[in-house]
């Protein structure tokens, strides 16, 4: 009887350890299931930020062209395709992201249209982040200077 009792000593400890491992595995599994949701939330935030950056780029080029219809060259400039990129920081000078603007002036004289594409990139370029592209056609007709085509979330066209 005493021998049998000795053999059973430590049973509860082993049982508790096994239970601990089992419960830990279940908890880790549950946490792992949520990983997709967290990633989805992060992606949604990045996407909104990239969209805002793309809109900022469109605002930037709009202001530049409204002040100078021949931006970035001059009247006699034959270059049709231009591109520039701006980094955007917050008030504390932390990088927020960037936007790239591509301006196609090949139909400026024939159709009075400038084709513009702006891609907002959330975060720094070396980070895993979101891109968002807006394509627009700007009418340069005198008295009708405005965007006449505005497509958000497109794949790059220019």
């Amino acid at each position: 009887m005493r021998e049998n009792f000795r053999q059973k000593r430590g049973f509860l400890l082993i049982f508790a350890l096994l239970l601990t491992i089992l419960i830990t595995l279940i908890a880790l599994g549950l946490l792992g299931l949520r990983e997709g949701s967290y990633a989805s939330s992060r992606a949604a935030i990045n996407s909104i930020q990239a969209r805002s950056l793309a809109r900022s780029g469109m605002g930037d080029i709009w202001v530049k062209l409204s002040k100078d219809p021949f931006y970035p060259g001059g009247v006699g400039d034959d270059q049709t395709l231009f591109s520039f990129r701006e980094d955007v920081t917050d008030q504390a000078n932390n990088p927020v992201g960037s936007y790239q603007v591509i301006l196609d002036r090949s139909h400026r004289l024939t159709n009075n249209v400038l084709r513009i594409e702006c891609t907002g990139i959330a975060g720094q370029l070396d980070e895993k982040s979101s891109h968002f592209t807006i394509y627009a056609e700007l009418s340069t007709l005198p008295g009708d200077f405005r965007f006449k085509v505005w497509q958000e979330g497109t794949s790059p066209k220019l």
Partner: protein
Amino acid sequence: MEAMFAFMLVFMILGALNQTLINAAKVRQNTAAMDQAIEEFHALLTIKSDIEAALTLANPAVNSTGSRLVLNRVNPDLPFTDRIDSVLGSADPFESAEQLTITYEIQDGVLKRLVKQGTSPAVVQRLIPAQTLRVERTGGARGLVTVSLSIEGPRVTKTRVIKAAVR
């Protein structure tokens, strides 16, 4: 002594698991609410994007309010080079034959986007369940459009509002 230690270990783990599950349930609730909010904002951003792309706004009239939004925009499926085909048509890339008429309205408790080109039947897109749509135009022809969408949630009815400038 051994049993006490074992029980203490089990209770500690059970307590931690309890906290984990409570937090997981909270995250699940918040994620569901966020998913719903993302759907609502997606619908509103679609409307905003259409307003900003509109060549003309047919309804509501300037400085008035309505429950439908009707606008005309260039068909985004037509590439620019096809729209300036001077052999087959006009060199104007924004002519009426290349435009879509888009209507937003509530039908059977669902916000719908009806896309119509020329005389062809409208393509209906179901966006989100919603109770009312209110569209207000202020500030003249190139003014501001305020879109209010009432959405019935599990506990309360929320009104989401978005503003867009007519270009």
